[in-house]
């Protein structure tokens, strides 16, 4: 099996599995006052310190959550509600048009149910958000800005520090979804100028269902979960000690290994791009060719449907993704490519290949061996109708 879907989830690192098992075997409620509670709390607090140290945050700025989706919801809804409570005129959200569903749907939900107004920031044909557009969007009724660090579909990296600075100058908290960035790009929370930053365990070698929101100490959020008051009263619920300690180790390792890892993946990715385009000359690389995630290659194959290609490659043991969300199993044209100006056909014709710690050159051999036939068949199928 050839796995090109590390951006969807990447296997846990062996060290992390070990750390998880050890902590899970120990148990303990980190809120309890007795001995085993103290031991659990110690693990959690050490984890918080390790995550903070790895990402340029202070320990008090780390809020553990149930993953990327929860962190995005907490940041966008929580900051929106808190800011609106402080100033009822602040009812606008500024968001890029290419956010992950976890942000996109949250924003649209606030629009539908909470009367939020939304300014969607356009992107250029390489998926970049421009500072001038953000400046224009920052009217004096904005509650929160949310722009992802790097795009999960096409891999384009945003100029986060510059965008955060623009938002900060307007006095608007800036949230960034950095789920895809950690372990591939240098991420320093303090230096980024962001008020809130989302990360998720299972994208960086940690467990699924655990993540964090880095949240500046002066940033007010309204909680989504009420209860025992854990995590600064922002995120109630008994802490998942094993998950958190495994997650912290994964973050630490991902950051420690980042430079070498990113260089190795980028070299492999460049080879993949070159060989795919040699095997299938019509393949178009999407996203920023330079400023992109080192593990990401994203193509359109004109005349093909991405889901037909995906099925054909899957039958050859090659696992990849169209990169875009589906609705009840039906592939949708990518909102990211549409925002980049692609037409519907191009937005449906894409495939994403993402690399990770198990990737090897032989994976690319298998891909370029299978791809031309798959493209030819998918193109034939694409001609039938539509």
């Amino acid at each position, binding site marked *: 099996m050839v796995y090109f879907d590390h951006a969807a989830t990447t296997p846990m690192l062996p060290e992390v599995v070990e750390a998880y098992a050890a902590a899970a075997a120990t148990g303990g409620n980190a809120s309890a006052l007795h001995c085993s509670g103290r031991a659990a709390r110690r693990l959690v607090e050490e984890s918080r310190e390790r995550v903070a140290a790895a990402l340029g945050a202070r320990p008090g700025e780390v809020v553990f959550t149930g993953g990327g989706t929860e962190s995005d919801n907490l940041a966008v809804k929580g900051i929106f509600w808190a800011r609106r409570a402080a100033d009822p005129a602040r009812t606008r959200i500024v968001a890029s048009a290419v956010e992950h569903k976890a942000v996109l749907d949250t924003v649209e939900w606030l629009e539908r149910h909470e009367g939020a107004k939304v300014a969607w920031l356009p992107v250029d044909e390489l998926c970049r958000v421009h500072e001038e557009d953000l400046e224009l969007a920052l009217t004096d009724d904005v509650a929160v800005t949310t722009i992802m660090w790097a795009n999960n579909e096409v891999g384009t990296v945003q100029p986060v520090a510059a965008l955060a600075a623009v938002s900060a100058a307007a006095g608007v908290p800036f949230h960034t979804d950095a789920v895809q960035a950690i372990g591939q790009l240098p991420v320093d929370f303090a230096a980024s100028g962001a008020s809130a930053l989302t990360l998720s365990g299972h994208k960086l070698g940690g467990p699924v269902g655990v993540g964090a929101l880095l949240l500046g100490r002066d940033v007010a959020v309204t909680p989504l979960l009420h209860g025992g008051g854990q995590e600064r009263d922002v995120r109630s619920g008994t802490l998942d000690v094993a998950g958190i300690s495994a997650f912290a180790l994964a973050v630490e390792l991902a950051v420690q290994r980042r430079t070498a890892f990113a260089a190795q993946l980028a070299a492999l990715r460049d080879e993949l791009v070159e060989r795919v385009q040699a095997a299938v000359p019509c393949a178009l690389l999407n996203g920023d060719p330079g400023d992109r995630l080192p593990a990401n290659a994203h193509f359109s194959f004109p005349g093909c449907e991405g889901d*037909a290609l995906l*099925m054909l490659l*899957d039958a050859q043991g090659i696992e990849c993704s169209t990169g875009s969300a589906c609705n*009840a*199993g*039906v592939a949708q044209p990518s909102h990211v490519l549409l925002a980049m100006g692609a037409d519907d056909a191009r937005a449906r014709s894409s495939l994403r290949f993402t690399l990770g710690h198990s990737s090897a050159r032989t994976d690319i051999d298998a891909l370029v061996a299978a791809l031309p036939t798959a493209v030819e068949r998918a193109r*034939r*199928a694409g001609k*039938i109708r539509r």
Partner: protein
Amino acid sequence: MRVLAAMSGGVDSAVAAALAAEAGHDVTGVHLALAKNPQTYRSGARGCCTLEDSRDARRAADVIGIPFYVWDMVEEFQEDVVDDFVAEYAAGRTPNPCLRCNEKIKFHAVLERALALGFDAVVTGHHARLGADGLLRRSVDAGKDQSYVLGVLNSHQLAKSMFPLGGYTKEQVRELAAARGLGVAGKPDSHDICFIADGDTQGFLAARLGSSPGDIVDSETGEVVGAHDGAYQYTIGQRKGLSIGRPAPDGKPRYVLSITPVTNTVTVGPRAALEVSTVTGDRALWLAPSPGGAVQVQLRAHGEVHDAQVSVVDDEIIAVLGKPALGIAPGQTMVVYQPDPAGDIVLGSATISAAR
């Protein structure tokens, strides 16, 4: 062979996929997304397009251990089945959408796509037999037989199809499902038209065709005996709900005899006038070398079977029935069978254009 199993989420298609896999084929399951807004179909008729059905199909594929995908056929289904259904009613005919779906979607759009993608055949859970002789026969389960709705398939389509269930009764299919741990073993059969969730065909048509008032005319006197709000609301042979003001001279009930779209007229008359003995169909599909001996025709799904003398002329099939049939509407499909001890054989089909 590489075969594509069309999986609706029901027990039949799940077992068909399982049997194909057990026969050694390389099977891939595909659920067809047909509804524009699948959520709205979650309740009501358990047809082929609810989200629940899609999940059931995926779960069955996982149990069988085959890959599973959802194919988006929303546009094709809308144009070729739903729009066609409405247009046929508007033209005064009575269509069978399941048959159209087989002809245009499952065994055309899906089949051609599958072939282009490198599959050798499509397998479905229809109750019909298709053996090595290439002949399409009725299922061993006469009550569940679906050869009628497959009667529109041409020899190319049949050559690329597999119907593994034809030799089993529905009861046996459920047992096969249970024995394989398929959760859909006890799932109720789907009835009704899958895209009309609440089963209200009249309401569905009224919402699309609107009000179009016209006359109800007596076939014998030519008199206008009532008014209607849309001829599509009537079916041939209908007796109830005609709201005819005055009684017929003979005091007997009146039936809908015909619908004439050009004049927007519904013609009513006595029951005897509903009887037809010659049925003509166009868009003929003929699979057999020649019609021989005593053949039979079936004029609607789950309808009566008639002995008939059939002749095929170009694009037309003309059937002279042994005994008269009642209430045959243009638009319905006539399927011709050759009686056979090993299962009656489908010889051909045509769309009924006239019945006298």
